[in-house]
């Protein structure tokens, strides 16, 4: 029995050692892998999408190798803090709220949000302007918000947890809404298609991608949203240098500078635009 106990100890110890990866020069970038066309997985499980390709491009400019790590959306920022990876490129919009805990590079692309319904819903044909920018505001915006508030009253609205879309719905800008939040956009789509949700809110491209791939008749309604709760574009999420200080903090600050420089270069070379057109069908770059 002593040998038994010894083997258990040694097995556990070696597992712990094998499991340890000491800090290397590679940049680890976290992404969700479930938000096409920003990031998703192909049939073999490989991470693909706009941000995956952009990540490799940016790393080339920085001059270091990078590893792309998959992470569930709801654990994305905690995982960054835990140093599971060093940067987030997961369609994460730059918002003031997030800036309280992490820092962002400059934005590299932008997305607009939109409401979506199944064809035949009574929300179709909402009388609103084509686009609404919440930061700019104005009477047109306020009128649109009023129309939307009336339309959404009493309806079940679905969105992904921890997103700018959830923040918007809970901000009170559209009154009190019956919000349901889901772990992934996939689940939102499923419940929209099955009729559990009257309407859903997400990035416009997420719905058009879903409609295309599933053949379901998902229709965008209302205006496209930007600004305000919807943030200021999508950037690379990084740890704040002040978090730990010392050598680790300095490394994080370095990384921020490196990414900003790389994004400038990539934008100048037209790389971001090219990739955006490839994945979104239009130039979503910033």
């Amino acid at each position, binding site marked *: *029995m*002593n040998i038994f*106990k010894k083997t*258990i100890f040694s*097995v*556990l110890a070696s*597992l*712990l050692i094998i*499991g*340890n*990866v*000491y*800090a290397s020069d590679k940049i680890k970038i976290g992404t969700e892998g*479930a938000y096409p066309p920003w990031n998703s*997985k192909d*049939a*073999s*499980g490989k991470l693909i999408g706009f941000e995956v390709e952009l990540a490799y491009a940016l790393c080339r400019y920085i001059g270091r190798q990078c590893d792309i790590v*998959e*992470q*569930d959306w709801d*654990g994305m920022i*905690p995982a960054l803090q*835990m*140093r*599971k990876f060093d940067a987030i490129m997961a369609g994460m919009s730059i918002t003031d709220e997030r800036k309280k805990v992490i820092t962002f590079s400059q934005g590299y692309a932008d997305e607009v949000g939109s409401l979506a319904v199944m064809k035949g819903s009574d929300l179709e044909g909402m009388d609103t302007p084509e686009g609404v920018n919440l930061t700019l505001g104005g009477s047109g915006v306020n009128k649109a918000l009023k129309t939307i508030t009336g339309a959404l009253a009493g309806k079940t609205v679905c969105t992904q947890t921890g997103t700018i879309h959830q923040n918007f719905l809970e901000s009170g800008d559209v009154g009190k809404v019956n919000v349901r939040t889901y772990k*992934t956009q*996939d*689940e939102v*789509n*499923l419940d929209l298609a099955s009729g559990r949700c009257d309407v859903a809110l997400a990035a416009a491209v997420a719905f058009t991608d879903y409609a295309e791939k*599933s053949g379901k008749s998902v229709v965008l309604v209302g205006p496209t949203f930007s600004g305000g709760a919807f943030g200021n574009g999508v950037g690379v999420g990084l740890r704040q240098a002040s978090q730990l200080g*010392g*050598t*680790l903090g300095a490394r994080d600050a370095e990384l921020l500078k490196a990414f900003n420089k790389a994004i400038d270069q990539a934008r100048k070379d037209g790389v971001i635009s090219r990739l955006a057109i490839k994945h979104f069908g239009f130039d979503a770059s910033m």
Partner: protein
Amino acid sequence: MELLSFGKTGWGDELFYATLMTIAVSITAMLIGFFFALIFTPLKLSNNKFLNFIANSYTTVIRGVPELLVIYLFFFGGSGAIMYVASIFGYFEYIEINAFITGSVAIGIISGAYSTEVFRGAIQSIDKGQFEAAKVLGIKKHIQFFKIIMPQMLRLAIPNLSNVWQITLKDTSLISVTGLVEIMRQSYIAAGSTRDPLLFYSFAAVLYLMLTFLSMKIINRLEVKYSRGF
């Protein structure tokens, strides 16, 4: 049905590897659980009130809080705690512990709490005469434990340990937060990609049932083997 086939378009091979992963995590977690149980059971049975308290806290807390929360707490708190401890020793580099270890230890902690209770109950139902006889014969304490008490304890414990195994096996479905690709996560991915949750979750249920069935067969064999000579 072709969605379940092996090969490029079928998810069969991914689900096969996911099943292997489920088995691997379950076994590892069960062993880690035994490791914890071997520590905490003596603490529970000791005469020292403080040690009792520690062991009781462990089993009460882990068995009284939903598994999902234990896993989240371990995942979000564990790495931080380990790195904090390491930083005290001057090791500032990032320590990555891979998903397999994280998941197995998380479930292992839960499994261990149940195993501790099982071992304790089993030891307490061994005839007191055995302990006395061992003492009287002047056998050293740790040999007493390993050569006399433990074999008897294991025999009594096996039926309840089979329950703990079932719990451990099913709890592996909750560790998707660690990113580990076991049956539940793979089904989730496949269901999302093909938009066919009914097929894949039903198939996942079938996989778990198969594992349960095989486990029962193996455990029954073990029970027979360990009951020999009694």
